[in-house]
């Protein structure tokens, strides 16, 4: 049925293990080439770590599946150099409409805040996203992509993991110092290790349909229906993806006949009733799912690290699946690198577990709250939900209670052991444990964004009125910090346009719209320290070298 996308078949090639008959030990093996495993592979090679990527299939995602990629994911893809094709192909909408029964409750316009490199989200089919993440790995000397390689055996060791892999040309053995399990909700890695995955299955069934819109000028808006005439008692969602393909999610209830409901003769009348008889469309893809809300208690098991759906899974409301998995990877890879290099202690990986189990709990809370609103359990809960919707038509106060999914945003972990708590007063700005905020800058007249200047190493952001005012001694300190074993590379953000692009090797930027100092609540002289994943770990209103070094040592769990 699918017409808008051509699937490339990635050929199986015998691995070096199969050609030589030798068991090799790789620094990192990633299992699963979905959005999360591919992000991990890109991050690893960008940081100079060779990666072997195993996937049992030989194509990108069959069907559009995850289609909403949030701002934090786009910022991560930007750091990985993969974001351009995604932004070109992806769709952004700003107008959303909410319907209850046969009436519109209200419409909203997201009116995105100016001065960010990336919007709150884009809609893009998962197959495109995976294609764009595979592209930079294809001929990368550090990337070994192994298609039709299925993990079938796992033997955890003290300092490595032993794997048995099945291929079209037989079984081979291999080893990894570290194994990243990105093999999804039905994770083979998790099963082979006999690990927990507690939670529950929701009985609700959902019909997903992608249609190609033939009618021109169908508006690029998100429409969400509660209890619509074409699907009484349940919900429905319509939004746009790339290639003029529209995603329709229809809740079917607990007792739906899954086999029957997927038949085009059942699907078509529902969609006609939804879009209107005069709208012309073609079916592209039909699928039925029910969802789980589950997570592992720990994401770190010896030399095996769990990310994405393998570690945690939630309902789709709010796009917190792939997006949270991509953030898991962002949190993990720099830590793994410092541990592999022997610079950081094992507590650094423990902080991955701390921060990302915290994020998973937050995502579970939000999606469960959305589920309760969309699919009430009792007559009392249904009355509450309907009361909100009826009031919201006339009364603005009820609108914030409407919950058709709360879009994934970066998780803030204020009590992370990597944070150095504030000593200086700040009236705003990203707190330690929160992601650095974007802002437009220029360098030598060329426009750029603050987040594009951060990542892979610790970074300092020094806010000044004029670069000439920076004392020589401080410049010398900043240069030395940039040359240390775990470097801190500083970017100077000046309120007045600087005359040059750098000052003694330190990049100079102009806070051209005044938004950087505003968003960071930064007085002249303020200094933010960010981790390689662009998370703020400490900040001061005044730079003091020894405090900056202490905060870095703490955030990197440096071995002394």
């Amino acid at each position, binding site marked *: 049925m699918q017409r808008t996308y051509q699937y490339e078949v990635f050929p199986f090639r015998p691995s070096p293990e199969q050609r030589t008959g030798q068991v090799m030990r790789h620094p990192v093996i990633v299992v699963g080439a979905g959005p999360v495993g591919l992000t991990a592979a890109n991050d690893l090679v960008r940081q100079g770590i060779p990666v072997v990527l195993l996937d049992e299939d030989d194509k990108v995602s069959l069907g559009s599946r995850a289609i909403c990629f949030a701002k934090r994911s786009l910022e991560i893809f930007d750091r990985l150099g993969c974001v351009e094709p995604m932004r070109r192909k992806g769709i952004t909408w700003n107008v959303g409409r909410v319907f209850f029964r046969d009436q519109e409750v209200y419409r909203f316009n997201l009116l995105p805040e100016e001065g960010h490199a990336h919007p709150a989200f884009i809609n893009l089919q998962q197959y495109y996203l995976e294609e764009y993440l595979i592209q930079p790995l294809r001929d990368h000397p550090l990337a070994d992509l192994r298609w039709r390689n299925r993990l079938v055996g796992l033997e955890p060791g003290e300092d490595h993991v032993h794997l048995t892999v099945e291929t079209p040309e037989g079984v081979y053995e291999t080893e990894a110092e570290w194994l990243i399990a990105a093999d999804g909700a039905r994770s083979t890695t998790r099963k082979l290790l006999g690990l927990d995955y507690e939670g529950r299955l929701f009985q609700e069934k959902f019909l997903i349909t992608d249609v190609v819109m033939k009618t021109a000028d169908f508006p690029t808006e998100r429409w969400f229906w509660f209890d619509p005439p074409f699907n009484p008692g349940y919900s429905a969602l319509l939004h746009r993806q790339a290639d003029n393909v529209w995603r329709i999610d229809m809740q079917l209830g607990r007792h739906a006949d899954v086999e029957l409901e997927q038949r085009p003769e059942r699907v078509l009348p529902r969609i006609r009733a939804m879009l209107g008889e005069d709208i012309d469309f073609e079916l592209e893809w039909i699928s039925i799912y029910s969802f789980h809300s589950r997570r592992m208690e720990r994401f770190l098991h010896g030399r095996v690290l769990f990310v994405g759906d393998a570690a945690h899974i939630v309902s789709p409301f709010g796009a917190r699946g792939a997006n949270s998995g991509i953030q898991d990877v962002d949190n993990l890879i720099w830590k793994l690198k410092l541990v592999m290099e022997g610079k950081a202690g094992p507590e650094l990986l423990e902080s991955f577990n701390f921060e990302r189990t915290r994020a998973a709990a937050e995502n579970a809370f939000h999606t469960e709250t959305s589920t309760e609103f969309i699919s009430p359990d009792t*007559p*009392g809960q249904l*009355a*509450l939900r*309907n*009361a*909100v919707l*009826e*009031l919201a038509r006339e009364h603005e*106060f*009820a609108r914030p*209670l409407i919950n058709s999914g709360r879009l994934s945003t970066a998780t803030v972990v204020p009590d992370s052991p990597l944070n150095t708590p504030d000593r200086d007063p700040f009236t705003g700005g990203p707190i330690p444990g929160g992601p650095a905020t974007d802002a437009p800058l220029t360098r030598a007249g060329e426009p750029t964004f603050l987040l594009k200047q951060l990542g892979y190493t610790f970074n300092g952001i020094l806010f000044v009125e004029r670069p000439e005012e920076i004392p020589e001694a401080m410049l010398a300190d900043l240069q030395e910090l940039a040359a240390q074993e775990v470097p801190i590379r500083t970017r100077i953000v000046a309120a007045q346009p600087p005359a040059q692009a750098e000052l003694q090797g330190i990049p100079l930027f102009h806070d051209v719209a005044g938004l950087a100092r505003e968003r960071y609540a930064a007085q002249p002289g303020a200094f933010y320290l960010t981790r390689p994943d662009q998370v703020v770990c400490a900040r001061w209103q005044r730079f003091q070298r020894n405090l900056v070094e202490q905060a870095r040592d703490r955030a990197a769990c440096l071995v002394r």
Partner: protein
Amino acid sequence: MPETTLQTEPRLQEPDLFYKSLAQLHAGLTPEESLLVNSKLLLVLANHIGDHQVLLQAIDLVKSNVSTD
């Protein structure tokens, strides 16, 4: 008394009139309609109160006020 504390001493200016209006709101309604009307009233009042702590205290009060039969 801090503003974030639920007021539980009698405060209604016209208890009988208020109760009558409240009862009137439910006159002739089916249980389902009553449930909806109560929910709307609750949401209007909750928004008027606004304070999250006060609302949680009200929920706790109701939770612990179980019927004894």
